[in-house]
Structure formats: C-alpha cells, structure tokens
C-alpha cells in the first residue's frame, strides 16, 4: 500500500475551491476561524478578497452565507462538521433550507477519524441532521478525485448542498480515465453475488479491502460507493439487494440516521432485505490516532470483514 497516493478530502476541497474560483467570480468562501484546518486557507491565499473570515460564530456565518446567496453569489461556508451541521443546524434549516438558498456547506473533520481532538469534535450525527432538511443535497466523497468533482458539481447545481470531508489522508481510489461523477448516482465498484456492501466516504476504500478478504473466503461481495446520500440512488441499491439478498452499509457516522438509516428506509419499504449497519454504534468517540480509532471501532477493513463474516 506504500505506493498508493493519499490525500485528505479537506485538502481536495481547498484545492477545488481555488480551481473554481479561477473560473467563477461569484464564488465566495466563508470560514469561522478554521481556515488552516478546513483548507479554505488555500483559497484565501489565491483570492483574499473573496475569502471572508466570520470568526468563531458559525450560526452567524451560515446566515451571512444565506444573505450572500440571496444576492446571486455562490457562497461555500466551512467549519468542522460538528459546528456547521451541529451548532448551526437551525440556521441551516431556517435561513438556508427553508428559502432553498444556494448555499454550499463544506464541512470538514467529519466522523471519528478526527482523531486526537476526541468526542467533542467527532461529528457522527451530521448526515442524520442534514438528511431531515427538505431539499438538502448531501455528498460524502470517498477520495481526492471524487471530492474535487463533488465540489464542482455542487457549485453547478442550484440549491443547498452539504459536502462532508475528512481530516485523515485517504487513498486515491477513483483515479481512472472513465471516472464520472453525477450527483445522486451510486457507483458499483465491484460486482458480486453473495452480498452487497453499500459504503460512503473513507469507508469505500475500507470496504473494497474487506471485500478482497471476503473473496479469499469464497464470499463474493458487491461493493457500491454511495457518494450522494441525499438524494439516495434507491434504484441501484434495490437492484443490488434483489440480486444478493443481503445488504451491509458502512459509514463513518452513527448507524442511526445516516447511510444505514437511509438504506434501511428504502429497503424496508420497497425490498425488505436482511441488513447489517456498520458504523459508530450509538456511542461517542474518544481521543486517539485516527487509524487506531477506526480499528478500535471496527471501521477499518479488518473490522468490516469481521462483522460481515459474523453476519453472513
């Protein structure tokens, strides 16, 4: 694995903003005193006049973004997922979601892989919160290539988008000539017949690795990358579930209300299927190196493999 290029999706986000900023004058970036960490600092360096630091006031930042969007510009506002989706939830709901303003929320440091900062900063609830807002698009990219494509797609669509990025450097898995990103379209990365693994974010790579180990045991897993959690590619998931008869969801988020919740909602109504939801099991995280935490909470390839073996 040493030769695999790794990059954190927050870094991809900062780079994508610069690329878009060069093309589009109406793109404005807001941050709440975390520009270095969220990587909007990269944009700040290139376009200081279009980077607004709102200070440590995320609720106001979301409102400022709403006002900017109301005048026809396209604001990307950033903070850690905990504060963008958590603290400012009601501002996102009422000042952005309800008027359907064209605000893009670039939330970084999502999930348990925040690492050493610990549970106060490890947001495992943001997807659940954002999913409940009508008209909100939610994208959780799996690597650098997908993150950059997602930022561009978010800019180009009209309406609020929640983009979820991670702190941890993750392998680049989508670097191929035929890669295509379309909001709302899942991607079958590996076909299989024994079960379906539906993964999102950094868990896509871990799931692919787990699928390799399962193959060694003669278990043929299909792996689907769901980068857009809302609107969910229900057709693709139902099709795969009908074929394999078993579905496992994998996410670096609470098993309540996130990808697992969304898939369970669809399948229970349209195609009842035996399911296993892998994720953060209704608990808070803790401090520690990100990789060690993923291991402890069984969210790495080995943990996923182990849980799936017990499930099948």
């Amino acid at each position, binding site marked *: 694995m040493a030769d695999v290029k790794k990059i954190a999706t927050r870094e991809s986000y900062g780079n994508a903003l610069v690329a878009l900023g060069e093309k589009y004058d109406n793109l*404005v970036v807001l941050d709440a005193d975390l520009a270095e960490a969220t990587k909007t600092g990269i944009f700040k360096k290139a376009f200081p*006049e*279009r980077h*607004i630091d*709102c*200070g440590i*006031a995320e*609720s*106001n930042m*979301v*409102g*400022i*973004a*709403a*006002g*900017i*969007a*109301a*005048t*026809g*510009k396209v*604001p990307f506002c950033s903070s850690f997922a905990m504060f963008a989706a958590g603290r400012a939830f*009601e*501002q996102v709901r*009422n*000042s952005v979601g*309800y*008027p*359907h303003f064209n605000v893009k929320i670039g939330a970084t440091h999502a999930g348990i892989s925040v690492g050493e900062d610990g549970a106060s900063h490890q947001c495992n609830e943001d997807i659940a919160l954002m999913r409940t807002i009508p008209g909100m698009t939610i994208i959780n990219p799996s690597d650098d290539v997908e993150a950059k494509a997602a930022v561009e797609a978010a800019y180009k669509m009209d309406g609020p988008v929640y983009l979820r990025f991670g702190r941890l450097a993750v392998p680049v898995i989508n670097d191929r000539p035929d890669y295509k990103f379309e909001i709302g379209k899942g991607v079958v990365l590996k076909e299989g017949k024994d079960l379906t693994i539906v993964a999102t974010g950094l868990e896509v790579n871990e799931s692919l690795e787990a699928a390799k180990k399962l193959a060694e045991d003669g278990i043929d897993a299909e792996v689907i990358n769901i980068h857009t959690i809302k609107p969910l590619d229900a057709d693709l998931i139902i099709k795969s579930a009908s074929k394999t008869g078993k579905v496992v969801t994998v996410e670096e988020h609470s098993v309540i209300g996130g990808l697992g919740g969304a898939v369970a909602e669809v399948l229970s109504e349209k195609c009842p299927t035996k399911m296993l939801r892998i994720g953060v099991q209704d608990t808070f995280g803790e401090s520690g190196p990100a990789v060690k935490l993923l291991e402890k909470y069984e969210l790495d390839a080995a943990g996923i493999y182990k849980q799936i073996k017990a499930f099948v």
Partner: protein
Amino acid sequence: MTNQELKKTAIEVRKGIIEGVHAAKAGHPGGSLSATEVFTYLYFEEMNIDPKNPKKADRDRFVLSKGHTAPGLYSALAQRGFFPVEDLKGLRSIGSHLQGHPCVQHTPGIDASSGSLGQGISVATGMALSAKLSNESYRVYTLLGDGEIQEGQVWEAAMFAGAKKLDNLCVIVDNNGLQIDGPVEKVNDPYPIPDKFKAFNFHVIEVADGNDFEQLRAAFKEARETKGAPSAIIMKTVKGKGISFMENQVGWHGKAPNDEEYAIAMEELKKAGEE
C-alpha cells in the same frame, strides 16, 4: 410623500393588519402595529424598490428579523402594490402565499425567509457584505424586536457588521418594551440597547418616538449619510399602536381580535383616517 400622506397610508396599513389577523383568527398584531410607521416609511419613502419588478437587481433589501410581525410587512407590501390588498385576508390559511412568517419563495417583495428570531440580522448582514464585495450601491434594512436581541446570534451578526464596517446596513430595533412573557426588562433585561450597539461599533441613532414620521425621516437620513460604520436605529414605540385597547397591552402580542373587537378597531381606524 409628505408626513401627512404617510400618516394616511399608515392607517391603511393598520387596517390591513387588523383584517389579516382577524381573518386568520391568529397572528401578531401588537408588534405589527408598533412597527407600522417604520414599514410604511421604508416602503413608501426610503427604499429603492419596484412593486412591478420585486426582484430587480439593484433594489434595496429588507429582512424582517422579527418575522412574527409579518402581518405589518404584508400589509405595507400590499398597500405598495406588490400584491392585492384582498390577499391579506388569506393570512395563515392553506394555499395562501401569506405564511405565518415571511417566506421568500411564496411572497413577492420578501427578500429572506425569517421567523426564527436572531437569524434575519445575519442574513441582512450577508446581503450588505455581498453588495460591498461587488461594489453595488443598494442598502439593506433589517427590523428586530427588543425581545429578539436576547438571542446571541444578534450579537454575532452585530460584531461582524461592525468589524466589516458595513455602512450600507441599517439595523432597526423596535423597542416597544413588551415580549410574550412580559416587559423586556423583567424577562431578561436588554437595556441599555444603544450602548450595546455602540460597543459593537455601530453608529447609533436614538428615536424618541418611532411612531412619528418626522423623527423616522431624520433617523433614516442620518443612517444613509453615515459612512464607515453600520447604523442602528433604536426607536421607542408603542406596542399595539393605533388601536386603543391594544396599546401597551402584552396580551395583544400574539392574539387576534374577535368580531366585536375587530369592529371597534376598524371603527377607530376609520375615524383616525377622517381626522
């Protein structure tokens, strides 16, 4: 408009408020009536707006941060010609474009959805910042309640607007002194209000009677001429202004008049119009 013409218009705006909340059997007449003069002044005198082209790019913006007083805003918009006055009777009813609190997607002339207190001032501040970013000359106005300023987000926005020197932003505080649970100073004392905005680097304009057009005219002129800092107009008003039995009565914060009270209120307004 002359002050006399504005006064006549304000009476019509008040009639629309009473019509709306009476028909809806719900709504917030008290704070709508205290702010009637400011709604009237903004839409008939101060703001660059066009009822026939409500989304014109260079328009001045208004955000009703104290969104529950939508009946007052709706009535002013209707009087100004953004939509028919008859629509006011549909307030809060299913299928009407007049939601209980302002909604940008439904109502012509509304620039932002509001109603969750403390959020409108941030949205207005974002609009003002946006104008600065692209060197546009429109101004942004936002109206807050004196109870609303208990919300922490108000001060996040105030700090930001002061720091960014948004002199195209005019914050108005309707200091009618009453909130749902009682007098503001008894619930959670927000006084002194001017000092607070001064501390956040606002140019503060105090208006002794916010139901007086001459005083409002002077205040808005001063705000418009202020450079290098956002303005805050802190105006003393009378909650329920213009309807004798509603004035300074906290009970009329969010209650509709019954048929008998409606008749008395409309008669009072009719008489006021004949003066």
